[in-house]
């Protein structure tokens, strides 16, 4: 098998992609929901879960990126115009950057607010910043801004995948679908 002729993502890449995708959507929704809650044991629990999820996503993204560097991604369809390739590449680079930056900003924010992150209540992450209210508030803004930027990119990413599937009718989406098997879209129809 030559790497150049790859038409599908590997099983590991597909698994990590969807695991991270659902985890990000869930953790993002949890973040939106929890921060307005009045203080309660439930709120403390949700915050911890959110932080555990963030650390887990971060580690999955490290794996995903390592896998991506060691396993070439399938080529984009030959018919795609150059500008679309550029936009697609830029979107992916930004998404990867944000998948690192979002949990990092959350971790730093927690430290600055004086609440250490203890992964699954077992493994304490070091506090890279000391407690500092102003810095904590600033990092909260940063965390929020990065999250909404990522949400916008995810929507663009999703929109582009659907456009490829339903308008261009190429295999850009199906090669990342776990159940599409070895067939491409044309054969599925």
């Amino acid at each position: 098998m030559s790497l150049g002729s790859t038409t599908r993502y590997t099983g590991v890449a597909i698994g990590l992609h969807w695991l991270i995708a659902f985890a990000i959507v869930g953790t993002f929704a949890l973040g939106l929901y929890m921060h307005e809650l009045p203080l309660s044991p439930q709120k403390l629990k949700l915050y911890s879960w959110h932080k555990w999820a963030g650390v887990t996503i971060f580690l999955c993204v490290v794996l995903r990126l390592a896998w991506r560097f060691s396993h070439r991604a399938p080529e984009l369809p030959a018919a795609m115009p150059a500008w679309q390739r550029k936009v697609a590449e830029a979107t992916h680079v930004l998404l990867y950057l944000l998948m690192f930056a979002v949990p990092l900003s959350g971790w730093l924010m927690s430290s600055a607010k004086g609440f250490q992150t203890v992964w699954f209540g077992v493994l304490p992450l070091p506090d890279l910043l000391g407690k500092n209210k102003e810095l904590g508030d600033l990092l909260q803004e940063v965390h929020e801004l990065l999250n909404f930027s990522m949400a916008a990119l995810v929507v663009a990413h999703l929109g582009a995948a659907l456009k490829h599937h339903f308008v261009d009718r190429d295999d850009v989406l199906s090669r990342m679908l776990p159940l599409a098997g070895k067939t491409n879209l044309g054969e599925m129809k």
Partner: protein
Amino acid sequence: MKLWQHGLALCVMATTLPACAVEFNQFQANKSALSFVSKQMNVPVEGQFKSFRGKIAFDPAKPAAAKAEFEIDLASIDAGSKDANDEVATKAWFDTKAFPIAKFTATSVKPLGNNRYEVAGKMSIKGRTLDLITPVTLRQEGNSASFEGSLVLKRADYAIGEGMWADFGTVANEVQIKFRLVAIAAAAASAK
């Protein structure tokens, strides 16, 4: 000069002359600190009380005769965040309006050797008074003495965190208390 030598000679004999014994009896609230660490979802969160008063009378030569009493303004708590400070003032926690002050009165001081003591006393919080025992280490520096120690207090014993907070799954029952209480010897201070 002669007077100074006299004073020194007297204090060398301090153990045999009770009148000259050093008694640390002027509590220094601004040099003292009272902090605590609670655990939320297994995350240690630091806090402190910023306002407290005390009376100390402690002569290292006569620890059994020592007296100590402290009052803590519960409204002066910093529990880690504004949300937490508002929360712990409510009825479920300290009920600060009804019980604004926590009080500790020492009832006995037992020397353990090596500048270490075991202090027993009565702790009153939120209308409940319970026995409390804590180790205390004495550090003397000139005419100043620092009493330092740490103990574990169980919040449920004083009904701190009732109702939905009563479960220890989120906020642990054990709260680590750390204190550093400083007193100076007034006699030595006035001799200057």
